[in-house]
């Protein structure tokens, strides 16, 4: 385990040349904010036909949704990496989003598709998030708070959890009738193009509340990144802090999965980019950078895809492709050191 962390550290050291880029973290943040804004404006305006009064609200909702999702994914990944004191794990590698899909499937399985579809989507969302918090708490808390748990065991258990959740959902999907399946399919494969506005409002409020919670915990987060023993020595109630963060992660993953479905590598991509360009350990700087990067990638990617290449819904596929490639490249870059 010690070796793993050492490896990650060497791997994630930025190339020597980057030191000449003498931007302070704050300047980097400003730059990123400007880029995010440009991406948003470009998305709203490029290639618009017809009346602005139609185009702006329509595209504005999408930009809004992508921002919420970007925040949720970036924050959940960075938080998760903080409590696992590791930079290559993400909630989705550990099976969190598969768990959410399983919860949705179970609800349809138990209630039946009709009942599921007629329930108020906001209420449904709240129930699903509550179930998610409960179950992820039960499953993952013991894994994280233990004293001498090895990292690889954690990862392995997480990956197998993911397979288990996915297969169990698959099994239940085979057992329900085709009508229910169609309803479930709609819920599972939500896309930016067809987002329920009420759900978006609830999600936004949820993410905003979690953000406030995170801000209050920022100093503790920095200490948690030192690893359990140091955190305990410095007087942090480790078990409690980890539980709180797992709750936040569960909520954020629910939001992003409910809005766009599972994305595996995206969080990994933005969190590691954030570590690379923000040369500081402080979460007060890393988190905003990760959020902005995530918004830039989502909205910018959508601009390129929709407006330049004329594809409609394949963004998640592209993100997985690029995210995975970038990650392997980061690993390879550690080569000479």
């Amino acid at each position, binding site marked *: 385990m010690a070796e793993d962390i050492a490896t990650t*550290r060497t791997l994630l050291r930025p190339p020597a040349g980057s030191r000449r880029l003498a931007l302070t973290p704050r300047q980097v943040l400003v730059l990123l904010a400007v880029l995010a804004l440009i991406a948003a404006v470009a998305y709203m305006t490029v290639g618009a036909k017809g009346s602005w009064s139609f185009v702006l609200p329509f595209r504005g909702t999408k930009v809004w949704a992508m921002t919420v999702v970007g925040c949720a994914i970036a924050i959940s990944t960075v938080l998760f990496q903080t409590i696992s004191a590791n930079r290559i794990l993400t909630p989705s590698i550990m099976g969190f989003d598969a768990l959410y899909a399983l919860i949705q499937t179970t609800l349809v399985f138990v209630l039946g598709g009709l009942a599921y579809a007629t329930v108020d989507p906001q209420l449904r969302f709240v129930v699903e998030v509550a179930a998610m918090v409960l179950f992820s708490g039960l499953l993952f808390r013991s894994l994280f708070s233990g004293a001498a748990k090895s990292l690889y065991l954690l990862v392995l258990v997480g990956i197998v959890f993911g397979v288990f959740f996915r297969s169990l959902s698959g099994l239940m999907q085979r057992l329900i009738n085709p009508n229910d399946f169609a309803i479930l399919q709609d819920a599972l494969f939500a896309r930016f193009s067809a987002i329920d506005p009420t759900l978006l409002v609830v999600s936004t409020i949820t993410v905003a509340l979690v953000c406030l919670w995170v801000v209050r915990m920022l100093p503790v987060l920095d200490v948690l990144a030192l*690893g359990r023993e140091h955190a305990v*020595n*410095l*007087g942090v*109630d*480790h078990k409690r802090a980890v539980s709180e963060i797992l709750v936040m992660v569960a909520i954020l993953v629910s939001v992003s999965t409910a809005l766009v479905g599972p994305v595996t590598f995206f969080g990994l991509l933005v969190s590691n980019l954030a570590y690379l360009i923000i040369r500081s*350990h402080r979460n007060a700087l890393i988190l905003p950078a990760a959020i902005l990067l995530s918004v830039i990638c989502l909205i910018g990617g959508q601009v390129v895809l929709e407006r330049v290449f004329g594809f409609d819904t394949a963004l998640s596929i592209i993100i997985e492709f690029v995210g995975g490639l970038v990650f392997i490249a980061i690993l390879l870059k550690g080569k000479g050191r």
Partner: protein
Amino acid sequence: MIRAQNVSKAYGEALVVDGVSLELPAHGITSIIGPNGAGKSTFLSMVSRLMPMSAGTVTVDGLDVTRTPSDVLARRLSILRQDNHIAARLTVADLVAFGRFPHSRGRLTVADKEHIDRAIGYLDLTDLAGRFLDELSGGQRQRAFVAMVLCQDTDYVLLDEPLNNLDMKHAMGMMKIMRRAADELGKTVVLVLHDINFASWYSDWIVAMKDGKVRHQGPASQIMRPEILADIYDMDIKVHEIGGRRVSVFYE
């Protein structure tokens, strides 16, 4: 005073620490010695609430370590274990500044900054303060962690094998710093040490553990005797007196 009563740690059937009752005197340096697997590090981890006990109680100045809020303890007792790896990218100054967290919860005051500078100076790290931890040698990094613990400014400082990774010069330097911390700042320092000569030369009190139990304890001069060392380490160890202090020789 640190008081341990009947402290045990069991992994399944195996008792790693077996009913240790012990009073570690306030002020001065206490070294815990013993062969591999004697339970020294485990005991230290339980005293410092890093590891739960299977049985027993530990109090620090009357505070039960398992019940007292962690942040209260963190202002009274600090612990540094071996093998410190940190995923985040930190400079030496960043790391040392974390030592003030129990006092200021992340908002550094002027007084905190003075503590930080003093601790960095104490460990002779002033020139390295801006360097990242992963750019340092093992020994330098070890000193940075010790600086963080000293910066925490607690009455009790517990260190698990602080001489690991240090060459002779720096090992001696580290022990001198501990001595100064005990003498000048009135700290209570508890060390787990492998080198019995370092223990003999610098500590006031020695606790010798074997098979999870305390076998002997007493002032350094009383523990550094051939018959006691032979009992602990199962080998012939000769003890010579040099300059009024006892030094062991165990090469054949």
